């Protein structure tokens, strides 16, 4: 399968302090790519630069290219980039509105007005996120009343409503318990049939369980990147080895 997203010499700095240094990575289509690394190494910064969210931070400066299917995203419309590349954050962020309104939030923006069509989208995406059966009778309930795991699944479903091609997830399970985490992992594997997924995780076994490829970032640089199995079983780099053995981080 082809490469859908590629960075070329991506460098990001805050206040002239380099946080990401010359990142070159190719992300494959319809696969799950995990990003691992110790806290503060720049994982979130990296994933945020992929859909230009990083530009919302004041004092951020970006160099290098990010190519989405060969097209430089910095030459595209910001909103268009984000339509193509969805994002889900560490803490569930359901809007303080009803589940229904959470789900139609983006489609309405993209011009869908027909009630039936909206309903169709909602059902489809909630099903994909494995949430439909649980909430179908309470679509008018406030989304903030859902449990943490349900909230996170709702956020993923909401991200899917814009029909992105790529889904970025920044530690989506770190606020959840084991059962909810398992739910979401299962769902992500299912989603990778249709979507390209990039997931930041600090949970190494999670990366092992679900990712096709894994990148290890340390101090703003990609130390090692390859098939997950390869990386965990045969790390080529000493640092990688130390990290996955739990010696630091």
């Amino acid at each position, binding site marked *: 399968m082809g490469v859908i997203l590629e960075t070329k010499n991506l460098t990001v700095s805050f206040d002239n302090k380099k946080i990401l240094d010359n990142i070159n990575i190719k992300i494959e289509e319809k696969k799950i790519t995990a990003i691992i690394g110790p806290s503060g190494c720049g994982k979130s910064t990296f994933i945020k630069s992929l859909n230009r*969210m990083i530009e*919302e931070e004041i004092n951020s400066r970006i160099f290098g290219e990010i190519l989405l299917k060969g097209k430089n995203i910095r030459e595209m419309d910001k909103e268009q980039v984000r339509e193509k590349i*969805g994002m889900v954050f560490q803490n569930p962020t359901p809007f*303080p509105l009803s589940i229904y309104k959470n789900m139609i939030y983006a489609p*309405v923006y993209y011009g869908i007005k027909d009630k039936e069509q909206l309903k169709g989208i909602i059902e489809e995406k909630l099903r994909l996120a494995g949430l439909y059966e649980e909430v179908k009778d309470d679509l008018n309930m406030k989304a903030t009343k859902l449990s943490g795991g349900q909230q996170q699944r709702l956020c993923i479903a909401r*991200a899917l409503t814009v029909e992105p091609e790529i889904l970025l997830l920044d530690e989506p399970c770190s606020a959840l318990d084991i059962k909810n985490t398992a739910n979401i992992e299962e769902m992500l594997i299912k989603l990778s049939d249709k979507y390209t997924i990039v997931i930041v995780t600090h949970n190494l076994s999670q990366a092992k369980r679900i990712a096709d490829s894994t990148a290890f970032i340390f101090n703003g640089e990609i130390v090692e990147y390859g098939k997950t199995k390869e990386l965990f079983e045969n790390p080529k780099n000493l640092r990688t080895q130390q990290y996955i053995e739990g010696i630091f981080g």
Partner: protein
Amino acid sequence: MYKRLDKIFNIFIKGLTFSSIIMLSFIIIFIMKESISIFEKVSVFEFLLGKEWDPLGQPPSVSIFPMILATIYVSLLAVAIALPIGVGSAVFLTSILNKRMRKILKPSIDLLAGLPSVIYGLIGLLVFVKFFEVHFDFSSGESVLAGGIILSIMILPFIISTCDESMIKICKQYKSTSEGLGVSKYHMIRYLILPACKKSILAGVILAFGRAMGETMAVMMVIGNSPVFPKLFGKAQTISSLIALEMGGAGVDSLHYHALFAAGFVLMMILFLVNMLFHYMKKSIDM
């Protein structure tokens, strides 16, 4: 040595607190007590819902229904004018202005809130009332409309600050999420911020409504003070302007005096209910 001081401080704090609480409760009870005796002469029903206010007539009639209506009327009018502008300004402040501009504009809103009501009255009388008389052919510019406009300016800061507070909160919390979905700022305002702030807006409205009802001087200077049923372009009299105007001349313990106290008590009770509603709202927002 410090131990003795502590004892004194202890007594001082407790004594002051309890005496102030007792004193404040006393005020409320006192007003109630001074009001109650009117109802020996007039029925509650007659007092609240009758049509005529003529405490010195023969026979006297004391009914504050027109004043109650007028109080509610001007306050509602004020809220109706201030609400769209206030919410719009809050959106403007939180979503359109940058931080620097906001920092400049915020204190000037506080300034608006801190202006004494006589100054509002002065502006009302010399600007709005004059304007109506000159340009609109009102027989007299003193009117419910003038009162409503002046009050709306006075309550604007309250509506802005309650909305602004929760809008900033929502904005901070969900900005990146919303941006992550690729929607524009205005979509976020329309479909996220405004719906999510519904309750805060309502709370702001209630607070502002309460303020408007309790206001005295500014309204009294522009509303004409006729104890009649209020009409938008006509004169009227609010409860507080009734008290301010007539209390000076009402002999202690006369019917007139007790009727004015009772009018004050009614206003107090209405405000009490409004405030309770506000706090209830505020609580349910925080939850």
